[in-house]
């Protein structure tokens, strides 16, 4: 089990935005109580939600360049795999990932994570 992503027994999906609100190969930021969450959209319309803090020096990942399932942090070019949240070797570190779904063109996340 993924020990760093949070799972809840009863998920309450909330709509954050439309898929089209996130530019392809781009990102949007959700300001939540626990901090900022970055939503990324890939060329093939997959959406990932990650804590918007690089495990290296806290850089805002949302401002990075998106390529395939990775994002390169704008501060020091760490590459984070958006699926696992892990930094690409030789760098080591991991960022929180959150469950996210795209349904009927809507981007849904679990409200519990943002409470």
């Amino acid at each position, binding site marked *: 089990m993924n020990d760093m992503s949070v799972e809840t027994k009863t998920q309450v999906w909330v709509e*954050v935005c439309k898929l089209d609100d996130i530019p392809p190969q781009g990102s949007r930021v959700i300001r939540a109580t626990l901090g900022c969450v970055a939503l990324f959209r890939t*060329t093939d319309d997959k959406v990932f939600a990650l804590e918007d803090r690089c495990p290296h*020096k*806290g850089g805002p990942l949302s401002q990075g360049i998106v*390529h395939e399932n*990775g994002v390169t942090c704008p501060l020091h070019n760490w590459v984070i795999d958006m699926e696992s949240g892990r930094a690409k070797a030789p760098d080591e570190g991991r960022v929180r990932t959150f469950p996210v779904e795209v349904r009927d063109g809507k981007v849904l996340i679990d409200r519990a994570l943002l409470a």
Partner: protein
Amino acid sequence: MTKKLVVIGNGMAPGRVLDHLFEKAPGEYEVTIFNAEPRVNYDRIMLSPVLSGEKAYEDIIIHDDAWYDEHGVTLLKGKKVVEIDRADRKVIAEDGTTAEYDKLLIATGSSPFVIPVPGNDLDGVVTYRDLDDVDAMLKTAQGGGHAVVIGGGLLGLEAAYGLKRQGMEVTVLHLMPTLMERQLDPSAGYLLEKALVERDIKIITRANTQEITGADGKVTGVTLEDGTELPADIVVMAVGIRPSAQLADDAGLEIGRGILVDDHMVTSDPDILAVGECVEHRGQCYGLVAPLYDMAKVIATNLAGDASAEYTGSVTATKLKVTGIDLYSAGDFAEADDREEIVLRDATGGIYKRLVLKDNKIIGAVLYGDTADGAWFFDLLKKETDISDMRETLIFGQAYAGGSPLDPTAAVAALPDDAEICGCNGVCKGTIVQAITEKGLTGVDDVRAHTKASSSCGTCTGLVEQLLAVTLGDAFQPDAVQPMCGCTDMGHDDVRRMIVAQELKSIPAVLQELNWKTSCGCAKCRPALNYYLLATWPGEYVDDKQSRFINERVHANIQKDGTYSVVPRMWGGITTPDELRAIADVADKFQIPTVKVTGGQRIDLLGVKKEDLPAVWADLNAAGMVSGHAYGKSLRTVKTCVGTDWCRFGTQDSTGLGIKLEKFMWGSWTPHKVKLGVSGCPRNCAEATCKDIGVVCVDSGYEIHFAGAAGMHVKGTEILCTVETEAEVLEYIGALTQLYREQGRYLERIYKWADRVGLKVAQEQVVENAERRKELNARFVYSQQFMQNDPWAERAQGKDAEEFTSFRLAQFGKVA
């Protein structure tokens, strides 16, 4: 005593003679070359890649001017010899230049055959022989339109492919039923035709040209005997060549089809030798490069005083230089009663291999689709090896013969020492291995320099690399080109060239056509590609903001805490009380924590929240300020001193010139950042001599400097030239910047670029060649018209709004 050697012609054959001669007998001859073409010696077999855009002229030069200087060779460019005076032992050129000789080498090559049909002298009917022909074709191709190539042989097909790649509609007319019938059997010819048709080249075989039609002296089409009419903006004749022997004939030398030579390559006059395509030796005339090189070796040995060397003829092999089509043919493959053949066909794989055997020896080989074993078959052919023992697996190639493994390196290791690796230059394995071990060679370039292997057509580069690997073991580091990033094996320069050649106009097109290994690139290659496309196709390419680093995407500099800094432009470092007030007001209004003066004579507002950026910009815009591009690989600042306005030492209006330069150049994207400085006198208060481009004003005008650095490396500038007027300063700097924009690799500062290509490149193209300078500057000016829109104003008015807004939790409603 030095003897006088005069060479008529400066093609590949005499070039190679001289290479060998200077090695064997340095200083023995004083050499004078008459070249009808106005240039140095270049690799003629690489004209096709130049036509298709895969290589540039500079890439195919064999001997540059420095080489002639170094060897004391007098090269008379653009001088055509019209007479050989054998009695007085001298040659006479068209313009009256004469040169006396002790030994004369005729290397007049061949001339293309022009078919005798009406209209063959119309403007737009060209042959395919030298760089001028290629230039003519490229010029026509710029306008698109239709090209008709007459002749479906090696040259014709390479011309057709090149013109297609340059964007023309191409039809090949071939008299015979199948293409390249002299080198290929009908089956391979068919596969070749299919592959070319797939590349959208129209092929008409059994085509008998009746007339070339024209209007106003210019070609408009081709009519075939069966009445077919084809439109044509250009007609390329590639039906064959014939030895150029007229000069020799006029001089009374014996000629047949070509100039007759004996096994020492000597003509009927013992002091006159001949080499290359102009000769006829034992009844044979050659048009490929390998035999010419064999002849060159013999001549050089003879000239060096060793009369034992003899040329006994060559067996030739052919490769077609069309990207993506692998085709190899060698020897004789006509059918006859006393011959057998082994054929392998793989229809889906598009592979066809045929070996022709006589008395258990290979006498001919045709390979299509998979030519890896070409060298091995050719080796067996030339050595007349008895193949009865391996006959059953012979067609599968060397890997299966004797059960040796499939690893290509092992296959190369298994080759005998006298197996030929480089067909163009006749270099065998033993020579290369010996050079590697004795001279301590470590890379392909070293091998090229010492043995000439892989220095002509380059198709054996892989074999040479494998030989290096076999010989050096783990010590071998393939040098090749540094790839752009992990997504590709291609280097920056190759990628740029292909963007131009294949007219790739989007990032997905580049990734697709250049076989990127990743589906959408990475943070290294995408910004580079975005720049290359933007620089190559101004006004056409649509900037991909997702391929830009954050600073360029949001037009501000990201700071360590995720806030941004904002630097408005202050033209030439000049500001006003109103601007300063507006900056102060913005700092107050948006609670900007730090206001700092930068090193580039501007003011930096640090700690701006991202969502405030558009409003900050709107306020700055309202006071007349625009983006200072302090975040871009682009023109940054033009630092100035006060010059003649105030300074008692000032010689020119450095502030005014700085402002003009900044207004001219702002908004341009470049491989890396570009910072300028203009100093009003040699005291240099604007520190212009450590800038990317600097101007130091002097009494008589303006010294233009470039290639300085004051970052991680500190380096003084180099002086480009001195000019007299401000208008010239702008033109020279515009041209210099454009040259850097076109040649610089992404993230390569001007000083690194100049260091890599040599300072003389800028000297030649910007200073010495006025026409080139004007072209470069014109391209810069053209590109600028699309670039000078203030990115801040666009975003203050709502562009990319989503970039500057975020979602808040309270906005969300429950869905399920």
